[in-house]
């Protein structure tokens, strides 16, 4: 497998934790992994972006126009990082409105055969009393879409392993609710 993932959002949305789930899983499956994170000044409320490359890669950065999948936990950041996706890429955005893309951007998505999905992950997580698990709701939802090269079971098992004990149950609940697509 050669797979390039971008995860974007703002500080505090669990982007590094989400990256860790995919990294741990890929490593377990015997792949090499390399990626890059935002630290320091950029983390103080600014945009956060995480690059993850699974398979045969040397550099930790993904070039714009070449990523396979984009997870964005914030709508504005989705716009800002959409350019990372390749033609035919997959995109999952945390958004209260399902059809939120600006008209011009919609044209870009169509022209480049980018399949864009949105899911109200914040709302779902808040309803579960676990606002900080929104990231897992979005990931759960993404796994219900075919073509995402990870299985529900594998990701679930990884979440169990990497979650701090006191967040394990809520993380799983958010993940499952997302997977079932319950809004």
């Amino acid at each position, binding site marked *: 497998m050669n797979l390039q993932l971008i995860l974007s959002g*703002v500080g*505090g949305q669990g982007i590094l934790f989400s*990256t*860790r789930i995919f*990294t*741990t899983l890929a*490593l377990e499956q015997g792949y*090499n*992994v*390399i*990626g*890059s*994170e*935002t*630290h*320091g*000044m*950029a983390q*103080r*409320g*600014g*945009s956060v972006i995480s690059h993850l490359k699974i398979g045969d*890669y*040397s*550099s*930790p*950065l*993904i*070039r*714009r*126009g*070449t990523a396979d999948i984009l997870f964005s936990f914030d709508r*504005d950041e989705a*716009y*800002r990082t*959409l*350019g990372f996706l*390749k*033609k035919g890429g997959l995109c999952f955005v945390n958004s209260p409105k399902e059809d939120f893309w*600006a008209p*011009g*951007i919609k044209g*870009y998505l169509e022209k*480049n055969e980018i399949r864009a999905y949105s899911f109200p992950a914040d709302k779902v997580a808040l309803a579960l009393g676990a*606002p900080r698990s929104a990231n897992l709701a979005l990931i759960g939802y993404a796994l219900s879409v075919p073509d995402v090269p990870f299985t529900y079971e594998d990701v679930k098992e990884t979440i169990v392993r990497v979650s701090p004990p006191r967040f394990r149950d809520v993380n799983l609940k958010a993940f499952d609710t997302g997977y079932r697509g319950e809004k």
Partner: protein
Amino acid sequence: MTEVRQEVLLGNEAVARGLVEAGCHVVASYPGTPSSEILPGVVRFKKELGLNTHVEWSINEKVAYEVALAASYTGKRAAVIMKQVGLNVAADPLMSSAYTGVKGGFVVISCDDPGPHSSQTEQDTRFFAMFAKVPALDPSSPREARDMVKAAFELSEKYSIPVILRPAIRICHARQNIDFRPVPELERPAAFEKDPGRWAATPRFRYVLHKELNEKLKAIEADFAQSELNVRHEGQDNRLGFIAGGASYSILTDTLREMGLEGRFPILKISTPHPLPQQLVADFIAGCERVLVLEEPDAVIELQIQDKSKVLGRFTGTVPAAGELVPEVTYGVLAGLMEELGLPVGPYLDLEELDRLVAELELPVRRPRLCPGCPHRAAFYALRRTLGAKAIYPSDIGCYTLGLNLKAVDTCLDMGGAVTIASGLYQAYHQDGQDVVVAATIGDSTFLHAGIPPLASAVHNQARFILVILDNSITAMTGMQPTADSGLLADGRMGNRVAIKDLVQACGVKFIEEMDPYRVKDFQALVKRARDYIRQEDGGIAVIISKRPCVLYDPTPLRENPVRVTVTEECDACKYCLTAFECPALVLDEDLGRVVIDRRICADCGVCIDVCYKGFIVPA
């Protein structure tokens, strides 16, 4: 087959692993992005493996350098870790120790920040290696960084010379799976052998040491020409060749593969940028029609290449002279050259169209801001509110540089610069008989790092200004490293406390007051008193210690005494709180036409109650 233990490590943790796998005995550091996670990584392995490694957060990089260097004098393996601008602070011992040499392996790890992402300059540590005449190694991945630590120690011991390891930010903050190697027990009882001609060399001996250093460099260059660290990949198309090192090499490799050009062109990977193995490079260039040099942040390899007639790089304008060589930039450079060679440039998305469409959306700019509940915000607000726009506000390096947003930061030069700039500003206006209030801010860790001599000097020279030491009990920006004031040590044990208040007093300051900045009104009154003091006849420098722990580091005080706030319906959306206080938890709700509290991120500090002078923000 035995199972190899592997783990996904941050590049900095990989360097830490390299240090313990090399049997390093003493590690000293001062935190700074992108280097801060290396020492905590060493602490982790030290604890896991029950090692006897001495680890310390020193008060600044010069101190860290010298503590580690002295350990090397005794024959032990030692390392000092810092960010690239930290090496400016440690430049003095670097230059001198290049001459004196070392005994036990001594590695200087200085992390560069092309971009820059979290630094005041894009300076290149490899230039410091040239300047000081010491060898530099440049890893192109976390795995390589781990391996190079050992190579650096071996080189250092072979030639009794400090060796610089220069991981750049894309190595430091990359994550990669790394297999663990055994950790040796390297017996090196401390044994300092007196040799005044070396360790205490006078200028006459320094000349001899300089000649010795030049000989060492020559021999090291010959070693580098044979070294496995430098790799030559052949290619069948010699119309173009590449010389690359560090992250630029990895990015080049991936980009060529994406363009379907893997293996086509010859590539010389240089992991030993100084001293440059001249013959190896000249032979490579001789076999190519043209050669593109990719390196960052500056043109260190390119500069050393003697015959540049075939060389493309920063000097020819082929590669941009500032900013990071991210994949997009590298691709742009390569695509231009491929077009010249009549080669396809691979699949390409029209991102300009997308960029234009996204720009038209006018998304709100998400500039970095102080956290909700940050005590610095309260202190900045009180300062600015009391002293107004006419006062001049020098500040310093840390989270609190973001006081810019509150118009309470006018300068940010370097570590400790707040105190000296305040002092110089006072003298410049005072000379003209002008009364301008100067109010400087500096963090606790920064004050300890480089603020003490400036304060002593300012007192001595009769300067008058207000100095607010923003004491949040921790080095916050770089990831919560303990300060000398807290007394905590790098491995979590308790050491001796060095109290900031005592230091200020010892510098000869007569006005020293400590206050919790959450008490905004009282804090404003204190600032007024400080202003009166710097103006009164027998006045001088007024120091206010603004004391309150960082909310990320220690949220307990707020958890125990939360002040829940709400905004009343009378709020007229004047936006005063949004601009003068800029708390991320205060948000203008366009539909309601008033400010609301974002409950998800509000820290319950209650400070904004005092900020809304119209009384619309009230306890809930």
